[in-house]
């Protein structure tokens, strides 16, 4: 029960930050996909930089454990590309779709959310067949970048954060 309340409270914080960051706006997401407005990547990348440092720091004394998703080309790449087409048609992603409903965007509720429910139900119906034929093609499991590159996690964090922050400064410098 306590965890359900925590989930709700954390969701409220998440929804508040998404809406206030501007990424629940249809035009902001379409602006990103048309490469005119970089708000979505600014929000995502600053969340990733902040989260990464915190999670790997909390991991040193063993306060958190990682939740790695396993991947394969059949699952990650094919699913990711289908997601991308839907992302552009709808102009929201699953999290910002929920946020858009909260701010009064009824296309998100009557179009997007109903579509998401239908889509996930279709996926559940296709799951057995996909599992047998597609999802395990080119499987690489729960690999992390440090494992892939055979270096220490903090080396990856240092280089990755430097590159991401450089990219964000370039965006600002270019006036985007």
């Amino acid at each position, binding site marked *: 029960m306590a965890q359900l309340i925590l989930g709700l409270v954390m*969701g409220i914080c998440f929804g508040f930050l998404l809406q206030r960051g501007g990424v629940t706006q249809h035009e902001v997401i379409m602006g990103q996909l048309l490469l005119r407005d970089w708000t979505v990547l600014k929000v*995502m990348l*600053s969340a990733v930089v902040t989260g990464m440092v915190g999670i790997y720091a909390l991991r040193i004394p063993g306060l958190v454990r990682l939740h790695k998703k396993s991947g394969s080309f059949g699952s990650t790449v094919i699913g*990711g590309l289908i997601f991308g087409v839907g992302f552009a048609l709808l102009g929201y992603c*699953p999290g910002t779709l929920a946020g858009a409903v909260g701010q009064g965007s009824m296309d998100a509720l009557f179009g997007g959310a109903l579509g*998401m429910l239908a889509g996930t139900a279709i996926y559940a119906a296709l799951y057995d067949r996909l599992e047998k034929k597609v999802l395990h093609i080119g499987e690489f499991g729960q690999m992390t970048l440090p494992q892939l590159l055979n270096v220490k996690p*903090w080396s990856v964090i240092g280089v990755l954060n430097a590159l991401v922050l450089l990219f964000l400064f370039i965006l600002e410098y270019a006036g985007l």
Partner: protein
Amino acid sequence: MLSGESKFMSRAANIGILSFAALVVLIWTEGLAAKDPDVTSQAIVSSVWGMKRWSPYVAGMGIGILSWFTFLLSDNTLGASGSYATTAGMIERILRGSKVKQKTYYREHPPEIGWGWMLLVGIVVGAFISAKLSGDFHMEIVPSFWESIVGESVLLRVLVAFLGGLLLGIGSRWADGCTSGHGISGTLQLVVSSWLAVICFFVGGVGTALIIF
């Protein structure tokens, strides 16, 4: 001479401090409110809570800090798409009874209210609170960008949004995550599948958007 462990700790601390410092510089140069002119003029008259938009870096850092607490307090990650599948399963159970539970997907992901489902409900509530506080809340069915390019037909917008949602639902479950679960929670853990997934989301999304709009 530093021992191996304290050398490691100081390197981790340095990377952390430098990353945060750079983000703070970004926020400081851009300002707390987003730089869109019609937004800042509104922002001057009200408090932080009344600003229509915050800097994307403030929102992003906030989401990053929130992710620490999801790991620390709930041993869980920010993510949204799985809970739509949970909801779909709950609806199917109402319509077709308990045999829905025989489907492999619902056996592996039981359609029951849990932490992630409450998180999704919370997103709706949180966005509502944010929009109400800043006066940004308004009922709308055809977004202005859509209207300027495609037209004002409500039916067309809802149909295309439904189709987009359908593909988003299939794709997010197919890839086992969305822009939150893979794009933020997975990438911040340095997971390869998440970095690959988020690249595919944007390749598919940017490609489709450039072709259609």
